[in-house]
């Protein structure tokens, strides 16, 4: 049992990724490379309508333009990404299953290892799981139950086939293909993803969730998620990620779009634990995701909650555009980095409507040689009378070789707005540990307790099912044993 801070830090800093294993499933893979042909191939493979193909091609065009000059403003050096070396399509060969029995037993075993057996979840948690394994939706459960309510919850591919009007209306309306280089890439080559539509006045009876996994070697994952909550609707969506161990870097450039109409509410929660690279900083996933929601109607609400413990580089800013009057945006985040991990994450709250409110709580924990940055923007437009924002971003440093950084941007063009921002950076105070020691807790447990308390404000915002997993992840990261 380690007794000093140093021992503990050493122990969990050195801890290797626990979920590193690879599922062997037959794959159909497109040779690496990106050009118009690739895009046409993907589109044809998925039997997409012409308008979507054209949309993808426009995405490709913007990607070519934007990738000429990769962004430099971020607080880390962007590793060179050879977009031509990535294979843009991979799908498990076996499809169209009617029951869980038909699912490849290996996939089921994978989920079991992750502690999320489909059957159990189905029975226990009442969670509908749209399991995505390398791009194509393998199995969707609980669909019938949802259908009764009129809720559409399916893979993006199915949505394009069965509900083209809805997809056409909303796809790219929040994150256009010209938004940034990775969003453009996603628009061009997105493989699949989840689609959710909650009709007027319906409260989704269960937490919707998707488990993302990156599997085959050399395939970036380009998910596209679209969630629409009609007037007065409510939906809570969970996204959880783990990835198998691998040595080369993998690119993940997903796009998530949320649309909340009048009085609607969307809650989006993420637990991300992709392969962070080994303790020397080799390998690991690049998590470059564009997530954005729009509160279109008055009194609507969008809430992002994220627990980020994985990925070599996490680079994302789940944002909310507060367009409707009295709409509310929330962002709760815990980002934990260790070894050589990098996180540059935060949010953007764009206040456009009157009486809009936003709340940002960000907790960073950095250890080892990692660099953890909060970058956020709160913008108040000239017509956003009485906008209100509260931002708190705290950083906890464990060890003297890591870094914690805050880059908040506060832009206000309205004299009636009230914006508050506060940030603190510190390490765990020795007197706190001492106090817990003398109450009989060893230092390891004391650190875990303090970190848990520190992150509690965010963890409390996760749905029950996820809070457990998130706590487990933090615990694993901290005490070096399976929690």
């Amino acid at each position, binding site marked *: 049992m380690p007794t000093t801070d140093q021992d503990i830090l050493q122990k969990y800093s050195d801890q290797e990724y626990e979920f590193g294993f690879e599922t062997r499933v037959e794959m159909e893979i497109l040779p690496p490379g990106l050009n118009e042909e690739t895009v046409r191939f993907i589109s044809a493979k998925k039997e997409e309508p012409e308008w979507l193909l054209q949309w993808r091609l426009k995405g490709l065009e913007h990607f070519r333009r934007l990738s000429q000059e990769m962004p430099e403003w971020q607080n880390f050096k962007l590793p060179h990404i050879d977009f031509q070396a990535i294979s843009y399509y991979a799908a498990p060969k076996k499809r169209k299953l009617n029951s869980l029995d038909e699912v490849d037993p290996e996939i089921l075993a994978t989920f079991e290892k992750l502690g999320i057996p489909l059957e159990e979840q189905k029975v226990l948690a009442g969670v509908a799981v749209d399991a995505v394994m390398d791009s194509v939706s393998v199995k969707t459960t609980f669909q019938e139950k949802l259908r009764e309510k009129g809720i559409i919850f399916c893979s993006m591919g199915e949505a394009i086939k069965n509900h083209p009007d809805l997809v056409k209306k909303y796809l790219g309306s929040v994150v256009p293909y010209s938004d940034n280089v990775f969003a453009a890439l996603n628009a061009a080559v997105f493989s699949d993803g989840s689609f959710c539509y909650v009709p007027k006045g319906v409260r989704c009876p269960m937490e919707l969730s998707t488990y993302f996994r990156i599997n085959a070697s050399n395939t970036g994952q380009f998910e596209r998620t679209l969630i629409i909550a009609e007037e007065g609707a409510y939906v809570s969506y969970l996204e959880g990620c783990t990835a198998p161990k691998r040595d080369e870097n993998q690119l993940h450039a997903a796009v998530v779009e949320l649309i909340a109409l009048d009085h609607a509410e969307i809650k989006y929660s993420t637990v991300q634990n992709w392969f962070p690279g080994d303790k020397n900083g080799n390998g690991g996933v690049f998590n470059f995701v564009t997530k954005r929601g729009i509160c279109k109607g008055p009194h609507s609400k969008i809430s992002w909650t994220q627990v980020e413990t994985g990925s070599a580089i996490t680079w994302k800013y789940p944002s909310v555009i507060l367009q409707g009057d009295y709409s509310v945006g929330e962002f709760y985040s815990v980002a934990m980095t260790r070894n050589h991990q990098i996180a540059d994450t935060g949010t953007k709250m764009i206040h456009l409507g009157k009486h809009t409110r936003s709340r940002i709580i960000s907790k960073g924990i950095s250890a080892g040689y990692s660099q953890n940055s909060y970058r956020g923007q709160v913008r108040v437009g000239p017509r956003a009378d009485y906008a209100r924002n509260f931002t708190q971003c705290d950083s906890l440093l464990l060890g003297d070789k890591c870094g914690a950084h805050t880059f908040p941007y506060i832009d206000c063009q309205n004299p009636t*707005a009230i914006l508050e921002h*506060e940030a603190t950076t510190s390490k765990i105070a020795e007197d706190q540990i001492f106090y817990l020691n003398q109450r009989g807790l060893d230092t390891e447990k004391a650190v875990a307790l303090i970190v848990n308390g520190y992150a509690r404000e965010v963890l409390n915002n996760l749905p029950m099912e996820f809070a457990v997993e998130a706590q487990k992840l933090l615990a694993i990261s901290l005490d070096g044993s399976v929690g």
Partner: protein
Amino acid sequence: MSKSIFNSFYQYLIENYRLPEDNQRNDVTWPKALLEHKQKAFEFFKTHGFPSTKQEDWKYTNLAGPLQQVFHIPANDTVADLKTAIANASIKDAHAYHIVLLNGKWQRELSDPLPDGVHFLDGKDALHHYYAEEYFASLADPTGVSLVAMNTAFIPAFNLLHIQKSTDRPLHIMHFYAANEPAFLPERLLLVAEESVQTQWIDTFHQLTSAPVFINYVAEQFLKEHVAMDIFLINQLPSSAVVFHHSETYLHSQSTYHHVNFSFPGAGFIRNNINARMQGSSSEANLWGLYLSGGQQLVDNHTIVDHQVASCNSNEWYKGILQDKSTGVFNGKIFVEKGAQKTNAFQKNNAILLSREATVHAKPQLEIFADDVKCSHGSTVGQMNEDALFYLRTRGLSELTARQLLIEAFAYDILSKVQNDAVAHHVMQLLRQHLHVESALPAGA
């Protein structure tokens, strides 16, 4: 997409660049070592041009507009009536030693004799001083700011303030600028405060003519061990001025640096870079600032507090009151470098918007590479507290008086940092003079 501006002013400068030795106007010769700095700086400026909004540090501060016209390098000295100007600029009851500068040139006969141990040097005295070779361009230039390089390249000479003994009364450096046509006026100061010196220093900026001027002021300041230095910077330039002000200060151990920065409606464009770098342990840097903006003004305060060694403290508080169509920009960086343990660094930034057309951009920023630290920042944007206003109204104050009182209270946090009553009083007068609460009253009030 270029990240720099290469406009006609830039072209003019590149074409008209002369090293001092070929320059007829200069009666001073530059030592070879310093000339190298100038040459290097010119090359840097030539490559980098003026920063554009594509650069993170200039994101909200667009130089393209203010530098649209060509500011000429003045051919000869402008004559101005400084006597009245000095009388107007002097601060009542401050009993300061006046040091008068016109377009960066020391006006010895109009300045007060300086006390024992305080040396103000210009021309060849400054150029050939032993500190010049040691320190000139060693602080500000490495920051890689192209406007600093521009300053180094284009200054005909610089001033050196060497303080060897504490002063009984404050120094007051009056920076006057005058030009009959659009002029580019670079000015440079090198300050060295020797061990255990305590001094207060008032820095005021004025323009005597109405032609547009681009003032590029760079100061490099060394505070040696145990120095206690207070600087009160008061910017009173009119709308014809475009101002770039860069001060870079190195603190040796146990020194204290206290910088209070005031600006008022006037200069159309103000960019201040106020940087303090702690190189010796147990030093302390305090940066305070208050800006009242008006008209179409842009006031941009960028500060850096750089904790390079352990056991230093820093405090920072910038407050802004924005009127009319003005824009306020604040960027406060705190760096805590590796090994700078036991650091306490605090920063605060508040802004009040008094007009619908005013805009504020704030970016408080922490970059921390050591773990045993206490760092925090807070930032707010808002308006007057309605409850406080209501309370004052119930006590019989008119809406106007009540609002005025609340704004003065808001400003008081910074004014109280001025450890000199005469200066604080003077600044309060300026604040009252430039504040027009009436226009901020809600309709019907």
